[in-house]
Every structure is written in C-alpha cells, then in structure tokens.
C-alpha cells in the first residue's frame, strides 16, 4: 500500500485517505479551537503526507509517521497565525481561575477520578485551554513528546514547556471539575423528574 502510494497511485492514496481521515481529523481537533480549522488542516495535512510519503523509510508505524506530519503541519499553521490567537489575555484569565481553584484542588480530585468523561468532552476541555497550554499538553501527554522536543518544535525553552504543562494540568483539572459539577446538576435534575 505504502509503495503504491509512493508511486502516486490514486487508488492507494484513496484507501489511505479514507482509512486514516478520521484519526487525523481527531489530531487536528485536539490542537485547534474549532471544527472549521480542523477540516481545512486535515486536508492540507493529507496533501503533505502524500507529498512526503517518499521520505517514510518504514522505521516505526506508518500511522505514527502520519500523525507527526499532521501535528507539524498544524503547529506550522498556528505559528503562522499566532497573532490571531490572543493567548496572553486568555493566559491571564487562566491564572486567576487556577488561583481560586488551588484552594479546593485536593478535595475535588476524588470526584474527578470517579467520573467518566466522553472523548468529546475531553476534546472540548482541551480546546478551551489557552493556545500555549493546549499545545504543550497535547504534545507531552497525548502525543508523548519529550520536553526537549517540545522546546524545539514550539521554539520555547524546556523550562517554559514544563511550567506550561504544569499550569495546563491544573486548568484541565479545574475544567474537569466544572464538568463534574455540570453532570451532577443534570443527574440531580433527572432524579427530580
């Protein structure tokens, strides 16, 4: 299949596209804020994958290689449109949120542990994070990059990567707890009915 793709056979490209579209779309959704951007970038990413497929040497999985190409493409897009995302303002809001949250952090952890979250809910929470937090959290936790790699990819220091990850986790906890409260409220409402 990959060899046929390298030869540029349309039928092979079609199979790869259809098989991996959904997974790659999910990757884009994690890094971006909305569906529209994700749809555009998944298409762009596939074209990049097809163009660069000759450089895939078979080391590691094809899926993993495709993911990396897709992530790099999304990060390049975000770097290009950096000014469109007012991350500093959002960061300051997030700081305020976290300060208030830290006091009750320990008490709510158990509630979060015992709650199931759908993937869509988790994606929604990640998308709600400030841009910098979103990228570092995705790269480190989900895509298992090292801080050194993140620093290189995002052009930041390793220290910044670590501190952003720490804050991102706290904010995720806060958002998850909000979700827990929301769910409890719905459950209580249903119980009344």
């Amino acid at each position, binding site marked *: 299949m990959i060899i046929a793709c390298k030869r540029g056979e349309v039928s092979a490209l079609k199979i790869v596209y259809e098989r991996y579209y959904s997974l790659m779309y999910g990757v884009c959704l994690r890094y971006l804020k909305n569906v529209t951007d994700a749809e555009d970038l998944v298409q762009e990413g596939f074209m990049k994958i097809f163009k660069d497929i*000759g450089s895939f040497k078979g080391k590691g999985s094809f899926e993993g290689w495709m993911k990396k190409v897709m992530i790099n493409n999304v990060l390049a897009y975000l770097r290009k449109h950096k000014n469109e995302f007012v991350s500093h303002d959002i960061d300051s809001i997030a700081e305020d949120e976290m300060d208030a949250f830290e006091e009750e952090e320990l008490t709510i952890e158990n509630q979060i542990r015992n709650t199931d979250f759908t993937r869509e809910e988790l994606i929604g929470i990640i998308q709600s994070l400030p841009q910098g937090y979103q990228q570092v959290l995705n790269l480190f936790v989900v895509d298992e990059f090292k801080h050194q790699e993140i620093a290189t990819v995002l052009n930041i220091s390793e220290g910044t990567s670590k501190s952003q990850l720490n804050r991102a986790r706290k904010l995720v906890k806060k958002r998850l707890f909000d979700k827990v409260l929301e769910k409890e409220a719905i459950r209580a409402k249903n119980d009344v009915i």
Partner: protein
Amino acid sequence: MEDRNKYIDQKLRELAGYTPNVKADWEAFYLNNQSGIDVLKSGTVKGTAGRLIGSSGFKYTIIAISVIAVFVAAYFITSDSGSRNNEEMKLPEIQIIRQNEVIVPVESSSPQNIPAEPAKKILKPVDETNNSIILDSKIQNPDKAKKVIDEMNQPKVPEVKEAVKKTVNDSTTKKPVIIKKTVIIQDTIRIKRPVGK
C-alpha cells in the same frame, strides 16, 4: 505530585486514538487537490529523487563525472605550476645575431702573380642601438672595428676561419692557381634579461 497528575494524564491519553465520527470524502478532496495529486501520479517528488539518486546508473555517472573533473583540475593545476616554474627558471634570453659576414679578399698564390679579383664584401646593416659590435667601414681590418661594449662587457673576438682553398686553372696560362678565401664570422650575443617583478 506526579501521582496526582497521573489520573489526568491517563484520561487525556485516551485521546491519542480518538476518531471522531466523520466520514472521509475522497471525491471532494480529490477535486480540491487534483493538480497536486496529478503531480504525485508520476511519483512523489522525493521518491523520484530518491530512486534517481539510488539508481546505480546515476551513481556511476556521478563517479565518472567526478573522476573527469579531478583529471581536468589536475591537468590545469600541473600545467599552471609548470608554466610558473618556467617563469621562475627563466634564463636570460640569448640571441645570436649573425651580424657580419666578411669575405676576405682572395689571395692568390699563383707563381705568375696573376692580379686577384677585387674582394667581395658583404656587410649587413648594423644596429647601433643594440649594443652590438659595429664594424669599421674598412672591413678588411676587422681589428679596427668600433666596438660597443655589450651588456656582458665581453667583447667578442672575431673568429677567423680559413675557409676554402680552391684550386682553379688560370685561363691564360693554364696553370693551376690556388685561391684562398677567408671568412670572418662575427657574432654578437644579445642578452635580454627578464623583466623584474
């Protein structure tokens, strides 16, 4: 702290294999990117380049070109250095100018003292500017030649050769006459020193 983050990380890690419920639309993708995909049909750019570079023919061509280039470069380098050596080793250029060829009058040693024919004199024009030997107009006496000291400051002594002894019969007496012909050859050595750098 790490342990406290673990459960968050575990939940988020589930997103690694997240596949939203969306359907791929190949036709739309193909229409939007037809030109790009058509380019791929002839093989991906990197793939084509890779195959070309990987092919043995290409490698041999590169090797052959490299070898030829080395030979050409070596030829130019050696010829260049050779010419430089020649320049450095350049000796003063020596020109031998045959300036005067003098035929001394015929001496006849006939018992009847038959009058000799007038001497045959051949003089080539003399260039005074070249520090050469200028002969006096009386060519029969080469010792009197006016000399201009050349650069070597070594005036040449004319070389006198007794050239030919010819025996002929006198037309009137029918007796043999010996004709002696002396040729004086004077050479001037002109030295041209290489122009200093």
